[in-house]
């Protein structure tokens, strides 16, 4: 069973969200997702300043097995992409909930309320998908 920290929110497409003290949202992919992908060899994160919509593909994670899009869980403006991942994509494998974060987004106040999962709901989703 993959790790599902209790203090985060999740999406059906295997992203996690953490609310930072300044109100911005940190986004990454879950332990389950990194495990399913295998060893990552390339991660492309969005540029700061980019406007993203909920559900929009905004990052790419590529492993020895496959390349997948990462979707923004919320609508807002990217304030940072994780600069470390260009040279150390494996950080997403080793610390997917910590230093392997992908981007930080400042949510737009007027944006639609995103459909997020609680840790319990995400665990259930993983079981359904046969983790």
């Amino acid at each position, binding site marked *: 069973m993959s790790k599902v920290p209790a203090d985060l929110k999740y999406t059906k497409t295997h992203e996690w969200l953490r609310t930072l003290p300044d109100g911005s949202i940190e986004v990454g992919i879950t332990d389950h997702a990194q495990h399913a992908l295998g060893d990552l060899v*390339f991660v492309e994160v969005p*540029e700061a300043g980019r406007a993203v919509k909920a559900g929009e593909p905004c990052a790419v994670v*590529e492993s020895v097995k*496959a*390349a997948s*899009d990462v979707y923004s869980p919320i609508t807002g403006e990217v304030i940072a992409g994780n600069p470390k991942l260009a040279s150390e994509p494996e950080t997403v494998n080793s610390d997917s909930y910590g230093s392997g974060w992908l981007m930080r987004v400042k949510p737009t106040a007027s944006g639609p309320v995103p459909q997020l999962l609680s840790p319990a709901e995400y665990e259930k989703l993983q079981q359904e998908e046969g983790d």
Partner: protein
Amino acid sequence: MAFIPHTAADVEAMLATIGVSSIDELFEEIPASLRVKSLAGVPDELNEMQIGRLMSERARTDGRPLCFIGAGAYEHHIPSAVWAITTRGEFYSAYTPYQAEASQGTLQLIYEYQTMIASLTGMQVSNASVYDGASAVAEASLMAVRANRKSKSQRILVPTTVHPHYRKVAVATATNQGLRFEEVPYSAGEGVIATPSLAKYEGEDITAIVIQQPNFFGRLEDVDALTDWAHARGILVVAVVNPTSLALLKPPGSWGTQGADIAVGDGQPLGVPLSSGGPYFGFMTTRLEYVRQIPGRIVGRTVDLNGRPGFTLTLQAREQHIRRAKATSNICTNQGLLMTAATIYMSLMGPQGLERVAAAAHAKTRELLNSLTRLKGVRAAFPGPVFHEAVVLLDRPVAPVLKALASRGILGGLDLGEYYPELGHALLVCATETKTAADIESYAAALGEVMQSVRAA
């Protein structure tokens, strides 16, 4: 044996299984207006003997004219060994096999090709080739949009000194993907990019600029200044180069202070015969930073479990089976046979051989220009250095002159009227190392006589 292995019963069983009544029904989602209803105009089949005879008759009508046309395809001497080796059974397949690593020889050849092309262009990485020079420019434009993440405009500056066919293919390929190509004029007196006209792009969001060297007129652009101008404004530089010329000219990897970002071109001059316009192949290179944006494949050298050296498909980051619906290109290794010939050609020539070819072509073109411009009614269109082709201006329409030359077995050059009507009676001529002094003299003599008989406009 029929090429389609299914019997009528097989087809019926398959249709029944998926609940479809006919094969046509499978294509129902294609609107009726887009379907071709008949193959009228396509003649009936011929057997091998008939087709062989027809083709030899057609080939005879080509004759063996003395060719002074360049304009993107160049007649070079091809050592006999090139195609003798290329057509060996081990190489004689256009594709990399589906289980690529099982064909170590094919992969090694692609690896050698990439190494040679990267070294020739002075760039860090080369892919395993694309279709031709024109598709390479289109792919490079699309790639520049992916690579230049600071630019949002998808605007590509394309000077009119870039090959007109390349520009047309780029527009046709990429316009519906949102790219906008904007023409930059050339300086009428010099036949190179009119740099003052770049001033209007100051402060604008431009994704990339395409620079051809030597340009379509055979002239040399100020690539260092143009590259630095572009980079200072966050504009990527797509170089379009002639591979033979790189034996003499500065490679795109050294243009300006940072070098070009993407360098492409047509590989035909490297051992591929003219053969009525194709098939040729395109080469495509970039800097390491953008390696994941290059279409097609890259072969790398590695070691196997036992530490023995071997070759593997290292990167095919943008292809369909990796990126599925997000694939950015369908370029694979379709031109593998031409790329094989080029690799063998480059191996046989070596850097010194290629340099001698380039120097000879340049010398012959100067000789040709001297001979032609001595004639009354013929003058050079642009002053300044050229590589192995140049524009001359006649004092009368070009088409009848070319027709009269053709009847004497001479292909006198490309009439530029269709592409650059503003130049007047302009003719693009080329001489490579294949032309002797006698060839050049006979062209000049024929042109002199033809100019006497074809009336001035």
